């Protein structure tokens, strides 16, 4: 009986945290449903001129200005 009163419900905490995390995950994914295609196309273009390892695309919001940051990692010997 003691433990029943002293234990705070962590399931409630889990639900609250999950709801927020998943909402933010979904928003990010919905933002660019074409992300994979865009990545593939950018890699193709850059590849014409140099070796590409990976590419990372992020949407950033700073001072009310939205920007697309495209990070192309080149192959080390390129």
């Amino acid at each position: 009986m003691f433990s029943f009163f002293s234990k705070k419900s962590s399931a409630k905490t889990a639900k609250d945290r999950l709801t927020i995390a998943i909402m933010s995950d979904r928003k990010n994914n919905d933002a660019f449903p074409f992300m994979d295609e865009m990545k593939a196309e950018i890699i193709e273009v850059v590849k014409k001129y140099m070796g590409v390892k990976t590419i990372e695309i992020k949407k950033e919001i700073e001072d009310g200005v939205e920007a697309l940051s495209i990070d192309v990692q080149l192959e080390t010997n390129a």
Partner: protein
Amino acid sequence: MGIIIAVISGKGGVGKTTTTANIGLGIALNDKKCVVVDFDIGQRNLDMILGLENRVVFDMVQVMDGEANLKQALIKSKISPNLHFLAASQTKDKSVLDSEKIFKLVTDLSAEYDFVILDAPAGIESGYEHTIEFADRAIVVVNPEVSSIRDADRAIGILDSKSQKVKDGSEVLKYLIINRINPKMVQSGEMLASEDILDILNVPLIGKIPEDKGIIDASNQGKPIILDTNAAAGKAYARIAARLCGQEIPLENVEEPENGLMQKIKEMFA
């Protein structure tokens, strides 16, 4: 044409392969022809859970590459003649998977079987995408635990954007299985309840499976727990298989501890 069902989870280790084995066998025991295919290339495990690891001669990659035909590669279950199994390749890399070949494989299988169940690899990489590509339906397996639920949501997102059915303007029917429920922890508020999980994921529930020590014993022996008619998890899998075969069985409340009434009486006197 049979129904193609992908068993997915996002996170690994939540009981995807155990679920595939038990549901496949359960469907077969309901007199439907069923084939289970291990899509976890390089990490073959379904054979062990089904107790068929010594019978594997050819794998699904060899079938797709034309090195073996389906008849040679399909392994009949020792328990039910209605259940067949197709092994994953253990030596190859998942980069060998190719959409056209997978389409041919699953179409050929669905011509012969009522149910074609594909055990997806964990994660959301190419192996996973190929597994869900031609699925008609998906079974999402989660544990009542934050990382499993979050990863499952990502896997569902990919299913809803990359499967052929969605590209054709249709949708993939989804069912949720909540696995490894600890009734006492749910009661005391230390574990997410099914309703909480349903609120978050928004996928209809097809069954709840209580945590069951017998699962380890079952996989040790290669005898799926559905064969143990006394095991709580075995009974839960049997009900899910029956539901998939079209029987209407109400969802049971596994969150209520088995000794629920006794527990309450004890608490009154405590």
